[in-house]
C-alpha cells in the first residue's frame, strides 16, 4: 500500500505552559513570527477542560510550575486517548531535563536558556512528524 501524506496549510495551534510571564511572552513572539497560533497558560490544567476540536497540535511545557508538576501533567496527557498523540516538549532549566523527558515519555525537550532557532526547529520537526503520522493513519483507516 502506498502511503500518501497530505500537506496541511492552516495555522497550527501551539499550547505553551510556563509560570514565568516573560518566558510566555518570548515564546509567543517567537512562534507568532512564524505564523503559529499560540495559546498561553501559567497552568497546564486548562488542557483537560478542552473540547476535542480545541486541542492544540503541540504542547510546550515547563517542568516546575507554581503549584503544578509538568511531569504529572505530561503523564495524564499521555494516558488520555484524546491527547496522547499530541507531542509534548518540555522547556525547562531543570538540569535533569533529558532524563525527565524519557521517564515521562514526553516527545522531546528544549533546555533553558534556549536558542530561538532551536526552539522553532524542534517545534517544526515534531509538528511535521505528528502530522505525517496522523495523515497516514487517516488514509490507512479509509
Amino acid at each position, binding site marked *: 500500500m502506498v502511503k500518501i501524506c497530505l500537506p496541511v496549510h492552516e495555522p497550527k495551534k501551539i499550547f505553551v505552559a510556563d509560570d*514565568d510571564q*516573560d*518566558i510566555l511572552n*518570548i*515564546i509567543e*513572539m*517567537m512562534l507568532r*513570527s512564524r505564523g503559529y497560533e499560540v495559546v498561553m497558560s501559567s497552568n497546564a490544567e486548562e488542557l483537560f477542560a478542552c473540547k476535542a476540536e480545541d486541542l492544540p497540535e503541540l504542547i510546550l511545557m515547563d517542568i*516546575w510550575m507554581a503549584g503544578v508538576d509538568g511531569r504529572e501533567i505530561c503523564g495524564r496527557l499521555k494516558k488520555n486517548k484524546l491527547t496522547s498523540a499530541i507531542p509534548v516538549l518540555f522547556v525547562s*532549566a*531543570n*538540569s*535533569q531535563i*533529558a*532524563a525527565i523527558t*524519557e521517564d515521562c515519555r514526553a516527545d522531546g525537550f528544549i*533546555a*533553558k*536558556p*534556549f*536558542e*530561538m532557532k532551536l526552539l522553532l526547529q524542534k517545534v517544526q520537526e515534531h509538528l511535521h512528524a505528528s502530522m505525517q503520522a496522523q495523515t497516514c493513519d487517516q488514509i490507512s483507516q479509509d
Partner: protein
Amino acid sequence: MIKGDKSYNDLLTRINELETKLDESNEIIESIRRGEVDAFIVQNNGTNEIYTLRSADKAFRLFIEKMNQGAVTIGDNGIVLYANTSFAKMVDVPLERVIGQVFLGLIPEAQRQPVSQLIAAAWRDKESRGEITIPGKEGGELPVALYLNQLEIDGGVALGIIASDMSLQKEAQEQKREMEKKDEFITIASHELKTPVTSIKGYIQVLQFNFQQQGNTHAAELLGKVDAQINKLTALISELLDARRIENGQLPLHFDRFDFSALLHEIVEETGRLLPQRLVVEDTTEGVQLFGDRNKLGQVITNIIDNAGKYSPPSSKIIVQAKAEQNILALYVKDQGIGIPRDQQQKIFERFFRVKGKKENTYAGLGLGLYISAEIIFRHQGRIGVESEEGKGSTFYFQLPVIRGENLSASA
C-alpha cells in the same frame, strides 16, 4: 567385708583410680571450657586418633574476641557470663570486672529502663533490638545499637547481646544528608539563575530577529554579541553545577546516536560569533555517527575552542580539524597562543587549575572547563590531551570511539 581384706583393699584402689580419672575428666572439660585445649588424642585399637578443636571453637572465640562490636552473654539472673574486650571498652570497665557483674549495673542509670525493657522483650520474644546512648570519649555521646538474642547453652538459656557503635554510621549518614542538601541547593540555584537568563536571552533574540527583518544589520550584530556573552554566563552556571556533580560522582549523561559533523558546525557557528574570522574548519567526518551525550560533547568542543581564543593573539587563526580513521574520531584545535609549559600540561585537566605565568591575570574563568571536559570524554571511553610549546601555541585534542552497529548499551 573386713578391713585388711584383699578385696576391700582392691576396691579402695579401684575407687582412688576412678576418682583420679574423674578429676582428670573434670579438668579436661574445664580446660575445653576455658579454651585451653586445641586437640585430643584418643587411643583406639592401638592407634592414636587426633581430634582438633582449633578449627571450630577457637576460631569463633577469636572472632568474637577481636570483633569491633561488643558481645555479652548474660544468664537468666542478669549476671554477665561472658563479655569481649570491645564491650568492656564501651562501658569503660576492665574486662575482668565485667564478667560476674549484674549487666544492668554496667549500663548508665539513665539508660537502665530502656535496656531492661529490651531484656524483658528478648526473654519473651526470643529477640529484641533497640538503640541507646552511652557516655563516649571526651564527654561526648556514643550511640549504640543493641541486638539481643536468646541462646541455648548447656541445656539452659542465656541472652546474647551484640552492641554496635553507631557513631561512624551516624557520621556517614550526616555527611550524606549534608551533601544532598548542598546538591539540592546547587540544583535550585542553577535553575533560579538560568530562569532570568532565559528571559534576557529570549528578548535579545526576538529583538535581533526584528532588527534583521527591518534590515538593521548593525543593531542585529550588536545584539548577537550580547547573546554570545549570555551564552558564556550560562556556561559558567552549568560549569559550577557540573563540577559539583563530578565531585559526587554523578554527572548525568544522556546517551543517544547523533551526527558529529552537524554538532561541530553548530558549535563553530556559535563560538565563531565571538571569534570573527578566526576559526578555520577542516572537517572530514561527514556522516560519522557517534553514540554519546550530544549536549555534553558540544560543551567540550565549545570549551576547547573558547580556550584557544582566550589564550592566543586577537587576530590569529585557530584551526579546528575533525577526522575519523577506522573506529576513532579525533578533533584537534590548534592555536598560535602563549602555550603551556611542559610541567603544567597534565595539570591543566585538574580542577581549579589555571596556567601559571605573568599573563595569567588577563583571563577570566573558573578553571573548571577542562576538568569537566576531561570527565565527559572519559565517560565516553575517549582520550583527551594537549601538545604545546611555550610561546608557540597549543593543540588540544580528543578522541572518541566511533560506535557502529545497533546493539549499543549506554554506560551513562
